[in-house]
């Protein structure tokens, strides 16, 4: 049985493998065509790659660009001014706001409110829609002022940024932000009072970027449950890319077997304490605290959205305009280390890039591990766990779809997930 996935970013289908009329396994078939970014960047200069990789994903291009810049800065020994670094972090948080807003309001809300689509919801409760669009529009303005546009921002480069917005532009954003908090809390009241119909105790390992003091954001280390690894150790030794028994889907599993979770739920469960107290107070009102299950990702997203907006507000209020006299566009490369790697918490979870530079400082090898690719194994495991042995009916598909929506796979960015070939067992419909 097969059904296209909707309400997710990108193209894929749910495939249910049945045995004797009962569900045996669930797969997510990725029909999104691969774009071979790892190949494309070969032979290119790092400064081009920073802009190219933004095109992996229309939702989280800043994560890609920021991460690539960070990776190259580290291996090329390029110092970044701390003000500039803070500016880029704000731009990255703006993206978190944008992505979570689009996800929660466009993909989760219809499910929460049991409407077929957003337009149906608009008919039923225009205020909800207005609030949601207020936040989406505001995130767009943030992205435009700090990055140039809603996606594929043009402001990040190796060594810093190209431009800092004028005080006037920042002031306009600051003037608007309190209205946005109002929209957000009104929406939060609806969303936080919703309880997922699927109850699942968390039992999978959870991975996020290790953060010393802040909420999980970006860095050189990751943390899997309680174990801290360098990105290199984790992605080269701990996690294995495996092929499945009856499919060729590439999946990331710890030590070759255990699937793990990346994304807002992982971050929330681990770094809940580091959220702003306003966020925790709001969550308390509705009795939300860690651990959240993967079906409660919308809670983690609302928390992160709120938290990010609070950080952004502090930044806007204390904005020190500094004219960043543009450093020459071409950076002098003095390769210190030919391997460049780094990790960023993209909206959907840990994103990891690894580049190997040749003597001429052009890329000879690249590996991009996306959040969605890492989550695919756990998505299938959970979907299978929830449906195995049940009759393969529409409801079963619905559950499998809910798992997908809960994980918010951004399939467009599945840089390397292989399309699944379904092996037919008897009676597969």
């Amino acid at each position, binding site marked *: 049985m097969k*059904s*296209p996935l909707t*309400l*997710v970013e*990108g*193209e894929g289908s749910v495939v249910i493998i049945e045995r004797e009329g009962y569900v045996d396994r669930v797969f997510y078939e990725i*029909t*999104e*065509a*691969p*774009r*071979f*970014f*790892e*190949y*494309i960047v*070969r032979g*290119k*200069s790092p400064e*081009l790659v920073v*802009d*190219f990789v933004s*095109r*992996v*994903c*229309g*939702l989280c291009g800043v994560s890609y660009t920021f991460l690539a810049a960070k990776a190259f800065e580290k291996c090329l020994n390029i110092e970044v001014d701390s003000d500039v670094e803070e500016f880029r972090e704000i731009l990255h948080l703006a993206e978190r706001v944008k992505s979570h807003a*689009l996800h929660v309001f*466009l*993909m989760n809300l*219809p499910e929460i409110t049991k409407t*077929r*689509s*957003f*337009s149906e919801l*608009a008919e039923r409760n225009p205020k909800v829609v207005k609030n949601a669009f207020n936040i*989406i*529009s505001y995130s*767009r303005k943030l992205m435009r002022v700090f990055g*140039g*546009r*809603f*996606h*594929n921002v*043009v402001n990040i*480069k190796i060594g810093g940024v*190209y*431009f800092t917005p004028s005080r006037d532009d920042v002031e306009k954003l600051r003037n608007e932000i309190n209205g946005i908090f109002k929209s957000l809390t009104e929406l939060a009241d609806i969303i936080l009072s919703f309880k997922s119909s699927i109850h699942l105790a968390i039992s999978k390992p959870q991975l996020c970027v290790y953060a010393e003091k802040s909420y999980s954001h970006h860095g050189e280390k990751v943390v899997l449950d309680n174990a801290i690894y360098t990105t290199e150790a984790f992605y080269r030794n701990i996690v294995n890319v495996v092929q499945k028994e009856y499919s*060729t889907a*590439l999946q990331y599993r710890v030590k070759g077997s255990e699937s793990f979770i990346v994304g807002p739920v992982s971050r929330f469960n681990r770094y809940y304490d580091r959220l702003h107290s306003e966020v925790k107070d709001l969550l308390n009102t509705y009795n939300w605290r860690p651990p959240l299950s993967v079906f409660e990702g919308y809670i983690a997203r609302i928390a992160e959205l709120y938290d990010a907006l609070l950080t952004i507000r502090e930044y806007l209020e204390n904005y020190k305009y500094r004219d960043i006299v*543009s450093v020459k*566009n*071409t950076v002098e490369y003095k390769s210190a280390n030919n391997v460049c790697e780094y990790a960023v918490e993209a909206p959907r979870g840990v994103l990891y890039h690894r580049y190997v530079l040749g003597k001429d400082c052009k890329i000879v090898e690249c590996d991009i591990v996306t959040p969605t690719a890492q989550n695919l194994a756990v998505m299938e495991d959970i979907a299978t766990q929830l449906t195995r042995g049940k009759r393969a009916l529409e409801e079963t598909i619905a559950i499998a779809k809910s798992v997908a929506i809960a994980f918010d796979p*951004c399939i*467009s*960015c599945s840089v*390397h997930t*292989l*399309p699944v*070939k379904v092996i037919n067992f008897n009676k597969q419909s």
Partner: protein
Amino acid sequence: MIRVLVAKLTSCSGCLNEVIYALTHSDIRAKYNVTYFTEVLNVDKISNAELAFIEGSITTKHQEEFLKNLRSQVEFLIALGTCALMGGVQSLRLEGNIEDVKKTIYPEPRYIDILSEVKPVDSVVKVDFAIPGCPINGDALVSFLRKYALGGLPVAIYETVCSECKRKNIPCIIVTQKSPCLGPITISGCGALCPQFGRGCYGCYGLKFFDITREKINALLDRLVELKVDEGNLKAILLAYSFKLYSKLKESRC
């Protein structure tokens, strides 16, 4: 209400998000009924509609069939963005042999069922209107939707990024900063975004398709190389964002 389909081929969903942005305008929502848009709508089958917006390029047989079927069900098809118009960044894979490309990433390349080409939308179906950009400018889409609802289309103005740059009162990046800028040969629409941010245009809206010849591109590239810019980088950028056009112009070199 005008019925609309929104579909995605090989691409990043960035242009689709601009469609979502357009739908945040209540006057547009009042006039358009989106009936297929898997990203935000729990509907998995396409049905007849007046308009279709297509993001992405064609890289699988399935997409080609899907697109042809979709075309037969709509009256007016709009190609959105660099992927749909030029092939998109993914076209850079065409620099290598497809089997080698697969091998560099996948352990089981035989399962990767994709075309050896990257096809822009207009190479498979008729395109009635195109909005360029990587991603497209959401405001251009809003303008299109408003004008279409009034019964017309935006009046075409063929310009380069320079036009928008000068109208925004930005001194030329090449002339003052000696920075590389592809503005003089790149189609307008972004509002001179990069020059506003103090960097040269990197051509993500695509080469202009009018007035352009190999000689003219070379004239600009020669000029930029004088500014100590890596010619290889410039060509890689032109291929990445203007594959369809630039690869054709490049061929005519021999």
